[in-house]
């Protein structure tokens, strides 16, 4: 234990945090401790207002080392809960530490407790102890180590506290229950103080209410100051978790503090809960004090002078954040192509995923009390806080997929420990009811939240309705939540509110209560406020998750291209909350013509979407409607009507678009363009469909400008994805051909090279150029590999690969065929008699039925050259091989060699079937190219490529000449060996340096 505590003390901030946490926590239950006010001594740091941090750091470790065996530790009652608490809350503390540390130095404070604990030596110890468990029942009042929001509200709060102490304390003097705090059993319940409060409240609710009313009306006018409690903090914490920005937290707190309604009520554990309802228009304070039953409530209204919380524009924030993303990734900082997609998505995930990570870390708290589902717990912390806010039994967050045939809502829930079987029944009932509702056409016009409520066999009696014009909220006349049905849970209640993003339904927040009458009309309003806060946040997370998944999917090797396209559509539908999405791609090399390659939609939309087309052909670029359609990406019935009035012929040109748009009411088109060149034509296009009236997709809500940043981001990522897919396709194709080539596929070396290629494509860069040369065994492999490296580098625009390719290609030219031919490959040899050398090779190919005419001039026989003999041999053989393969009998094959003025010319010519086009003629040296005339002949399209590559190595030249005569073609390939380069070594100047 001592060791543990020592270890803990080394993390002094954790202790400080714990103290702060519990100070705040205790303060949140302030009325309870007010009972004991008279009995408590107060310790005040005095006018110097020493910081807590300073105080701690002076005496911290030294003190503890000296005193760790002192009686207060050993005799402190029930130290185990402290340690246990620490262990359980460790993660939470770790998360909060940074936040608190930031503000710790600025805080002033004091902790009060029984006088006997505040002897000189014990003072610091008091800071460190778990106030809840050990100093239970002590008064904690006065300046505390507070979060900024609390400090901001502090002046008002102190006055409230003072008045409360003065007035309420006196009133409740008779209810002091010292025994409650001392009683071990009560303490084990964790909230001994709660009992005190409960006892008071039952009898004296009116006294409390009147007192509060008197205080607020007389004293607090003009101040932002209110009683805070857990709910208050919860709201601020949600804001914090969502944004992590002090200003926003302050604003949120301000909003929460200067809210329209504050609700006090008791939860099942008899904790006091306060709810803050922000008001949008008028900043009135309304204080409702509920006592558990309706007839015991007190309502107080206040008028604060300030306008806090004016800035809680989450939508704006989302748009701004998205826009910044687009800006920052507009190819200035990062390159193009597939590898960047992953990086971008990772960056997105990291930037926004912090929230998620923190949420998960925070989830460690209160594990003893709640049962948490093991899966889908990313939003668990969020759900938990909402659950605390409402004192609910279960909180579920549904995310609706508009394009799904069946409802595949994600269920994120957080609930208290209950019978698992019943819980499962409850969730299943919910799931099924929502699914059933979504298939009912008549119900589509209503909010899914309402449907959820409606179809759950009226277990929900209160929900929000959607009117045809957007966000009109209708609250049923019956304000109470009833549950007439006994199964699966008796006497329960629930509310469900929609989460909206840009006016479109994104999901549903559902809160289930323990008992009937638990929720009221204001509960629904509060739930809606929360849904408004968390909706955009969750949407943002889901968007980024979708885009990340999209990038991963696009770069996934094993996934077929069709599935990738479908995946793009699926993500697009989810991101834009559309009922269907269609991806159009240009087929082949034709521009301005697009065909449907994939779609993702509900079953009932399939026949319509199948007819859809996308074409820019025939539309005038200067037409304003077309411009609106292209830039605004907004297409509805009205615009079509205008279009038809202005351009009567338009309908005939793009009939499917019109008919589709009429049926769907909404058609949004996002053209995907090359982000490097905004003026370029569309690379592909994404169409999104919104069924009229379904799930809140109202015309008024579909404002294109709101979606603009999202559309830009999507466009960017899609452009990159398409590029990545194309790159990947090239690599795949090359690799496939590489492997299937009949000659080369037999060697292991090829496979290794191919594997490297694949690895490169997957960005697993590792091998150095030296390793590459070792890996690659065969000359051709190396050549091909080098070329692919280069191609890859050019396509990927990755500096590292390009660098690698450069050095690798340099090495590749040097290291050739080491294993099979040893040094002979790169060894330069003198060919004494070039004529004989050539004749021997050509003679070897002279087999019937081919006729060879070998004409090697006398000069050649007297010529000697220095070169890489192997490569020249190989070149010549490839030409001969080529000629014998493609010659048409009985035409002879002619081999000539002569010595010119400055070069030796070796030519091989044959007559064969013509190539189809000029383009084919130009491409004959390409790797893997096979002409139209070669269809019936086996081969891999490598011979001439090898000749060409070898010529580059040898620094000689290869010319081709193709002449047409009598329906056949004469192919002449000429090897030109410049005499300067191929001169015998002793006469050369620079070779071999």
């Amino acid at each position, binding site marked *: 234990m001592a060791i543990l505590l020592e270890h803990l003390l080394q993390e002094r901030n954790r202790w400080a945090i714990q103290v702060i946490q519990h100070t705040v926590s205790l303060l949140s239950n302030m009325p309870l401790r007010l009972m004991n006010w008279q009995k408590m001594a107060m310790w005040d740091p005095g006018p110097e207002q020493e910081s807590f941090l300073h105080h701690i750091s002076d005496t911290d470790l030294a003190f503890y080392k000296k005193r760790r065996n002192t009686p207060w530790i050993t005799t402190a009652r029930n130290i185990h809960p402290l340690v246990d608490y620490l262990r359980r809350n460790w993660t939470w503390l770790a998360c909060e530490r940074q936040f608190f540390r930031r503000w710790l130095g600025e805080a002033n404070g004091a902790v009060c407790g029984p006088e006997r604990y505040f002897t000189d030596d014990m003072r610091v110890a008091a800071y460190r102890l778990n106030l809840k468990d050990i100093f239970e029942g002590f008064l904690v009042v006065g300046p505390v180590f507070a979060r900024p929001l609390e400090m901001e509200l502090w002046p008002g709060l102190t006055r409230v506290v003072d008045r409360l102490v003065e007035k309420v304390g006196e009133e409740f003097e008779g209810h002091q229950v010292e025994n409650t705090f001392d009683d071990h059993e009560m303490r084990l319940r964790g909230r001994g103080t709660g009992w005190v409060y409960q006892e008071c409240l039952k009898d004296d609710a009116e006294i409390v209410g009147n007192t509060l009313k008197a205080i607020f009306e007389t004293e607090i006018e003009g101040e932002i100051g209110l009683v805070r409690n857990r709910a208050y903090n919860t709201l601020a914490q949600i804001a914090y978790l969502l944004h992590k920005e002090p200003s926003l937290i302050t604003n949120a707190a301000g909003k929460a503090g200067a809210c329209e309604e504050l609700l006090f009520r008791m939860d099942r554990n008899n904790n006091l809960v306060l709810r803050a309802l922000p008001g949008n228009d008028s900043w009135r304070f309304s204080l409702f004090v509920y006592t558990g039953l309706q007839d015991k409530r007190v309502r107080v209204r206040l008028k604060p002078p300030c306008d806090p919380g004016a800035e809680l524009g989450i939508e704006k924030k989302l748009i701004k954040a998205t826009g910044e993303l687009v800006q920052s990734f507009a190819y200035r900082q990062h390159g193009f192509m597939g590898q960047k997609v992953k990086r971008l998505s990772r960056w997105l995930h990291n930037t926004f995923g912090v929230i998620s990570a923190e949420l998960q870390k925070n989830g460690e708290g209160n594990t003893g009390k709640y049962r948490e589902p093991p899966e889908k717990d990313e939003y668990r912390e969020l759900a938990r806080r909402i659950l605390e806010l409402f004192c609910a039994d279960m909180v579920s967050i549904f995310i609706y997929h508009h394009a799904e045939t069946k409802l595949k809502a994600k269920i994120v829930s957080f609930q208290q420990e209950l019978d698992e079987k019943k819980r499962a029944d409850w969730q299943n009932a919910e799931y099924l009811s929502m699914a059933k509702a979504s298939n009912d056409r008549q119900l589509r016009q209503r909010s899914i939240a309402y449907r959820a409520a409606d179809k759950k066999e009226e277990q929900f009696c209160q929900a929000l309705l959607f009117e045809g014009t957007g966000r009109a909220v209708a609250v049923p006349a019956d304000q109470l939540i009833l549950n007439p049905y006994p199964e699966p849970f008796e006497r329960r209640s629930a509310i469900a509110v929609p989460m909206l993003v840009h006016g479109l339904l994104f999901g549903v927040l559902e809160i289930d209560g323990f008992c009937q009458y638990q929720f009221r009309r204001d509960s629904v309003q509060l739930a809606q406020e929360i849904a408004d806060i968390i909706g955009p946040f969750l949407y943002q997370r889901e968007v980024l998750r979708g885009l990340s998944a999209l990038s991963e999917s696009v770069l996934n090797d094993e996934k077929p291209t069709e599935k990738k396209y479908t995946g793009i559509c699926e993500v697009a539908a989810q991101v834009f909350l559309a009922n269907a999405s269609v991806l159009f791609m240009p087929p082949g090399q034709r521009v301005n013509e697009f065909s449907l390659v994939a779609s993702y939609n509900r079953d009932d939309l399939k026949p319509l979407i199948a007819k859809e087309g996308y074409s820019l052909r025939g539309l005038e670029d200067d037409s304003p409607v077309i411009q609106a359609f292209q830039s605004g990406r907004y297409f509805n019935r009205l615009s079509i009507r205008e279009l038809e009035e202005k351009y009567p012929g338009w309908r005939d040109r793009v009939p499917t678009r019109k008919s589709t748009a009429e049926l769907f009411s909404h058609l949004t088109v996002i053209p995907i363009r090359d982000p490097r060149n905004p003026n370029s034509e569309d690379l592909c296009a994404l169409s999104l469909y919104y069924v009229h009236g379904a799930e809140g997709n109202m015309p008024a809500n579909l404002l294109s400008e709101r979606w603009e940043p999202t559309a830009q981001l999507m466009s960017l990522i899609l452009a990159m994805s398409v590029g990545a897919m194309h790159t990947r396709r090239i690599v795949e194709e090359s690799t496939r051909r590489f492997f299937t080539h009949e000659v080369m596929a037999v060697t292991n070396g090829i496979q290794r090279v191919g594997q490297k290629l694949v690895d490169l494509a997957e960005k697993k860069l590792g091998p150095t150029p030296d390793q590459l040369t070792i890996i690659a065994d065969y000359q051709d492999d190396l050549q091909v590999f080098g070329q692919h490296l280069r191609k890859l580098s050019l396509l990927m625009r990755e500096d590292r690969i390009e660098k690698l390719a450069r*050095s690798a290609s*340099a090495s590749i030219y040097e290291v050739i065929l080491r294993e099979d031919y040893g040094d002979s490959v790169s060894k330069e040899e003198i060919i004494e008699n070039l004529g004989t050398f050539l004749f021997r090779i050509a003679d070897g190919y002279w087999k019937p039925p081919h006729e060879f005419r070998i004409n090697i001039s006398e000069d050649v026989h007297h010529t000697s050259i220095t070169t890489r003999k192997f490569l020249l041999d190989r070149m010549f053989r490839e030409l001969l091989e080529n000629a014998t393969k493609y010659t048409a009998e009985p035409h002879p094959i002619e081999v000539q060699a002569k010595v010119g003025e400055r070069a030796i010319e070796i030519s091989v010519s044959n007559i064969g079937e013509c190539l189809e086009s000029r383009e084919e003629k130009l491409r004959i040296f390409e790797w893997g190219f096979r002409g139209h005339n070669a269809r019936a002949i086996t081969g891999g399209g490598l011979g001439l490529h090898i000749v060409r590559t070898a010529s580059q190595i040898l620094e000689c030249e290869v010319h081709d000449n193709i002449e047409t005569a009598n329906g056949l073609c004469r192919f002449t390939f000429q090897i030109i060996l*410049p005499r300067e380069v191929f001169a015998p070594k002793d006469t050369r100047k620079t070779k071999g340096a």
Partner: protein
Amino acid sequence: MVTRTVVFVEDARGQAVDQILYCESKELSVADVGMPYGLREVLEKHDAGEIEIVLFVVDLALPGFHAEKFFDVGSVDDKSGFDAGWIVLEKILRPEDQQCRYGNIPAVILTHLELTSKAKARLNAMNERNQALGRPLVRYLQKWGTSSFLPTWAKEFEAIIDELIARLDNSHG
């Protein structure tokens, strides 16, 4: 009439097929040279008046292109050939020598390589010199994008050819 010739200094002419075909469709003769020897031959033909070179299209990455073998360009440190196109431009087609016979023939860089800051500086330096000497500037066209999409650089290239032909016709006319 002397044949108007466009010289493609390109090691893999298969990658410039569309451009070659476009030139040929405009009745320009095309000489593709992938090696210094061939380039020298073409230039000699031009000097002899057998052909009239009207445009150089130079690729930057030319593996195996050792210009120092056949041209007086001094020692060159470019084993890989990735800078060979630059050497051709800077030493042969646009040298500092004001008497260079090819300085007034337009030249275009057509390459896959990205115009990095380094390359940009190199290009700018060369073009400043060209401007000072009254030579046509060297354009940089980066082949980008995939074949299934409309390449804007190809459009630019075709515009250059059209402009060139119009200018030639005017001067002859």
